[in-house]
């Protein structure tokens, strides 16, 4: 039976924990709004880019001169997994679920006899993958000092990946990230970025019978475009990740705050009971003392 003082201390400590989780929840909510806005603002560019890539790739598909980024290297022996996670924890199962998806892919690919290489973006993913697949990690990209994801950050990552591709270090690249659906739902997603899976031509513009003219020409444009496309995909993944992370943290902290509240109620009840028991005991002592006289 804990003493009254113990109980009081425990209530105090749970209460201060609750204050922290509550504050974290509110911070996450504010950050989430900003992250969501950034993700929405980036959408037109990505969508138009997809439209153009779909358009162009349809016109060069099957050409022997089609760029490698689109057609692939001709083999698929080495797979590169780009695992994008957050740098900070305390956001529920967000990071673990992305890592789990990546791990399943690794097991599957290794089962098929492929070579797997991993590039991690964000600290938590590296921490979790290092234990099991430390040997496969080829590179880590630190995002610790990025406060707001800018396109330049994504471009840096894309450049690294493209350099590796040009050096023939891998044939196929997959990107893992948490797609933001809503505050309570973030879906870990895997996406193939190299060779670019030509997105469905969703909105082929109606040309009214006219011919498209290209300057300099289709292949030159694709050569410029495809590396950008990779950059845009990574940028989008990072933005989605940022929003997902805050969403996951918000709901995790909301849960924690609620749990702390329940805990406080329970401890309060226990405290009151103990206090009453003590009063009763003291009364009995006084009464029986008086009777004995």
């Amino acid at each position, binding site marked *: 039976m804990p003493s009254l003082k113990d109980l009081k201390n425990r209530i105090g400590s749970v209460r201060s924990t609750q204050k922290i989780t509550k504050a974290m929840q509110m911070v996450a909510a504010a950050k989430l709004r900003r992250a969501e806005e950034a993700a929405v603002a*980036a959408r037109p560019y*990505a969508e*138009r880019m997809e439209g153009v890539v779909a358009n162009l790739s349809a016109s060069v598909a099957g050409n022997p001169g089609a760029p490698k980024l689109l057609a692939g290297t001709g083999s698929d022996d080495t797979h590169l997994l780009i695992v994008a996670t957050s740098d900070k924890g305390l956001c529920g199962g967000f990071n673990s679920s992305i890592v789990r998806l990546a791990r399943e892919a690794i097991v599957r690919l290794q089962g098929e006899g492929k070579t797997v290489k991993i590039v991690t973006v964000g600290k938590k993913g590296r921490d979790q993958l290092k234990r099991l697949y430390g040997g496969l990690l080829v590179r880590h990209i630190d995002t610790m000092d990025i406060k707001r994801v800018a*396109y330049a950050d994504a471009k840096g990552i894309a450049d690294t990946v493209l350099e590796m591709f040009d050096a023939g270090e891998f044939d196929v690249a997959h990107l893992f990230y948490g797609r933001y659906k809503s505050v309570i739902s973030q879906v870990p997603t895997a996406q193939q970025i190299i060779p670019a899976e030509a997105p469905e031509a969703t909105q082929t*513009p109606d040309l009214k019978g006219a011919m498209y*003219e290209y*300057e300099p020409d289709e292949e030159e*444009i694709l050569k410029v475009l495809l590396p*950008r496309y990779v*950059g845009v995909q990574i940028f989008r993944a990072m933005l989605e990740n940022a929003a997902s992370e805050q969403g996951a943290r918000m709901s995790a902290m909301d849960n924690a705050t609620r749990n702390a509240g329940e805990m406080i109620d329970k401890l309060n009840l226990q405290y009151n009971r103990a206090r009453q028991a003590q009063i009763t005991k003291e009364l009995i002592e006084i009464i029986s003392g008086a009777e004995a006289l």
Partner: protein
Amino acid sequence: MADKLTFNLVSPEKEVYSGEVDQVIVPGTEGEFGVLPNHAPFMSTLLPGMLVIKNGGEERRIFVQGGFADVTPAGLTVLAELAIPAEELKGEVLSAQKAAANDQLQKADTPEASLAARRAVDTLAAH
């Protein structure tokens, strides 16, 4: 000329400009070109430079870098990696861009890259 051209300028981070205009002059890889309403379908990559939007006698200049322009019957879309309105291009922003352009010029290893970097440097210097 009653017709107007629907023009969108988007950068990865946001939509920079969207609206109906009279004419847009785009710095294309093979020379500047102007786009008027009802232009034929056309696609070109961009060189760094000033994009000029003309609308009702007014002119807006926007510095663009890296990307391409896509003309369809629906209008003109410019996707630029970087798009900074000329009026914001001063002080720190300008010097940062200048430094970046000079840096690129140093590192350029292909004729195309060095041409693009030189254009960026020149445009920024003239500004």
